[in-house]
């Protein structure tokens, strides 16, 4: 059937099973918007208020469901506004398909109105990108984009489509298959390497699992849980990995890294075999790389060969999908006569429990001022630990990660790699749109929320009753904390003056606002907010501005050099 390029885009997305498309129209993408209007389609387009929010919402849709997120924006400023969201997804390996309109091919390079070199600008922050110059290649290019975005180590793929290509006609057949000769996805780990890893794992006296976002993205949570439980070894998870292994399990020693638990970081530092799965040895995890895990042999399972031995030299590398590799390891373990050294393991646990006994997450409660940690603990109680929690970036993000124990994967949605302020609200929109029956809470601060607050309008238009938990401490808290510790308390530009009256602001957008200042009424107000299941509620919670995130590994220090309080 002969279709225009614009119609092909719409038809292809339908054929590919896409449900939601986040976007914003503009000149160079009008033919596709027209095709959305004139074609009977099951595709639901959500009109955001800023292109950055479209990319974040689509990104969160993907994080919550595992399916790729879809973005449609125009050329020039539409594309550049989307860049932050694309970079955010890239750093956390989220499959995102970004379709951008472009000026007609005859005008490319002439500095046309709303022209920008989108492919050039986005190149370092996408897994791959395409400029489609011929409508005959459009369908196949879209297919390639989905294939590249969702396989191997996932990531965003951008397709730039000039306006004349959107208007040109060609026969459309849904491309069932895709073949890219230079792109081969590893489907299985090397069995010899897996054997070596299992041998090393069984010989450990002070073993440690260190798992990351790759376990969540690779849907390997159940395999990981089974493997870790079968061995009885301690496990720590990165910020991006939280929920892949249940936090309430006694084998979990919590998050590691700069604001991880004392026990997790001490166990990392003293372990003799480190089993890293779907994690990438980020600097916020390792601290000073020279002092990282000084006595450990390292096993590293990752889908991306370039992640292995990038920051830390690995002894047993395994390239493969984590779910498959873990299944192979479990199978070997079942057939194995050898068992872990129980005596050594029991001594190791004694040591870990002594670190645990320090109770590093304890904080000074207060009846006068609302403690931010208490807000997160209250959120956990009120939502029975079963919410989808999105967060922005800063102190509140760390407190959410520390005080909301996640039992399931894909429940904790935050920008780990790029650390993008402003993601929280669009993330909540993306999750709520994907899972209308889920309880969705956005933990944010008065700084971050203002970076994408215009999306309150989108939430009203599409009926997205998310709950915004704003820890309002009148400061850019994490900046203030670093200035207190490392810049001699010179609070340069970290105080937020002239804040809006958030209650009035959200009311003007048609939502419910609540201001909470008294610790005694925090829980009842929060219950009230979550009871309004069909309304967006913004809780402006006035918190203790002097509170810092502890424990902390200062930059340049080793994992055994934490500041406790």
């Amino acid at each position, binding site marked *: 059937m002969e279709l225009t390029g614009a119609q092909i885009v719409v038809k292809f997305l339908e054929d590919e099973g896409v449900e939601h498309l986040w976007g914003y129209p503009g000149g160079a993408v009008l033919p596709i918007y027209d095709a959305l209007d004139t074609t009977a389609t099951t595709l639901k387009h959500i009109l955001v208020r800023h292109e950055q929010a479209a990319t974040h919402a689509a990104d969160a849709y993907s994080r919550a469901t595992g399916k790729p997120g879809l973005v449609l924006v125009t050329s020039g400023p539409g594309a550049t506004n989307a860049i932050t969201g694309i970079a955010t997804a890239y750093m956390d390996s989220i499959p995102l398909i970004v379709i951008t309109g472009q000026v007609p091919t005859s005008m490319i390079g002439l500095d046309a109105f709303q022209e920008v070199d989108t*492919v*050039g600008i986005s*190149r*370092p922050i996408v*897994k*791959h990108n395409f*400029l489609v110059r011929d409508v005959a290649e459009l369908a196949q290019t879209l297919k390639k984009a989905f294939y*590249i975005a969702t396989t191997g180590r996932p990531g965003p793929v951008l397709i730039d489509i000039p306006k004349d290509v959107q208007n040109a006609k060609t026969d459309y057949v849904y491309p069932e298959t895709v073949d*890219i*000769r*230079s*792109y081969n996805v590893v489907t299985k780990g090397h069995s010899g390497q897996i054997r070596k890893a299992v041998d090393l794992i069984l010989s450990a006296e002070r073993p440690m699992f260190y798992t990351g976002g790759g376990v969540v993205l690779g849907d390997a949570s159940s395999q990981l849980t089974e493997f870790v439980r079968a061995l009885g070894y301690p496990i720590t998870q990165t910020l991006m990995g939280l929920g892949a292994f249940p936090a309430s399990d006694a084998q979990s020693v919590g998050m590691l890294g700069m604001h991880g638990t004392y026990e997790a970081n001490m166990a990392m530092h003293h372990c003799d075999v480190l089993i890293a799965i779907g994690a990438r040895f980020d600097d916020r995890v390792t601290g000073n790389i020279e002092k990282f895990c000084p006595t450990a042999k390292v096993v590293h399972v990752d889908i*991306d*060969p*370039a992640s292995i*031995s*990038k920051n830390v*030299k690995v002894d047993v590398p395994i390239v493969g999908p984590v779910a498959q590799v873990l299944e192979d390891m479990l199978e070997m373990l079942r057939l194995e006569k050898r068992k872990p050294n129980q005596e050594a393991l029991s001594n190791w646990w004694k040591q870990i429990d002594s670190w645990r006994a320090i109770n590093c997450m304890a904080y000074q409660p207060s009846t006068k001022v609302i403690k931010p940690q208490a807000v997160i603990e209250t959120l956990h109680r009120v939502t029975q630990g079963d919410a989808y929690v999105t967060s922005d970036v800063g102190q509140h993000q760390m407190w959410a990660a520390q005080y909301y124990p996640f039992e399931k994967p894909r429940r904790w949605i935050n920008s780990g790699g790029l650390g993008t302020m402003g993601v929280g609200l669009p993330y909540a929109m993306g999750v709520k749109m994907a899972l209308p029956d889920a309880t969705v809470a956005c933990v944010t601060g008065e700084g971050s929320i203002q970076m994408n607050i215009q999306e309150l309008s989108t939430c009203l238009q599409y009926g997205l009753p998310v709950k915004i938990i704003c820890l309002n401490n009148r400061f850019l808290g994490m900046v203030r904390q670093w200035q207190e510790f490392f810049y001699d308390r010179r609070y340069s530009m970290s105080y937020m003056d002239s804040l809006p009256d958030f209650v009035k602001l959200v009311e003007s957008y048609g939502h419910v606002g609540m201001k909470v200042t008294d610790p005694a009424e925090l829980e009842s107000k929060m219950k009230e907010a979550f009871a309004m299941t069909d309304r967006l509620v913004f809780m402006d919670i006035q918190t203790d501005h002097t509170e810092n995130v502890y424990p902390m590994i200062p930059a340049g220090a080793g994992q055994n050099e934490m500041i406790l309080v």
Partner: protein
Amino acid sequence: MRHIISMLMENESGALSRVAGLFSARGYNIQELTVAPTEDQTVSRLTLVTEGDEQQIEQIVKHLNRLIDVVKVVDLTNGEHIERELLLIKLMATGAHREELKRLADIFRAQIVDVSATTYTVQLVGDKSKTDAFINALDASLILETVRSGALGIMRGEKRLQI
């Protein structure tokens, strides 16, 4: 250590900038770079010279392999290989220098490929040490212009870089 990395990449617009962008984004250095078509019209052969320790080179090769437009990569330095560079150099050639430069070119088995009343243009093919040696042997004040192709390389024997 100096490494010659050679690859086949898809003849797609932007493929070269993906390779160059990777090097600049990750702080690696490209010292020499050549790109040209091959017998297979769908791919180009790109050869580059970079410096790095073993771990850096391993990362460079892994990251190059990650690029969708890069079909095959080989670090030629890992095995027996032939390296060649083409040098074109324009020299001030007047008076007694004309004879002397001709003799020097003969010693290095270089060819004078263009002549004017005051200049010679000399062509020399060899590995980097040879082209360096020739340039060093010249009186620097006579060099008017230097053009070097950068290294090209191919594996010895039956081994070849193929799709």
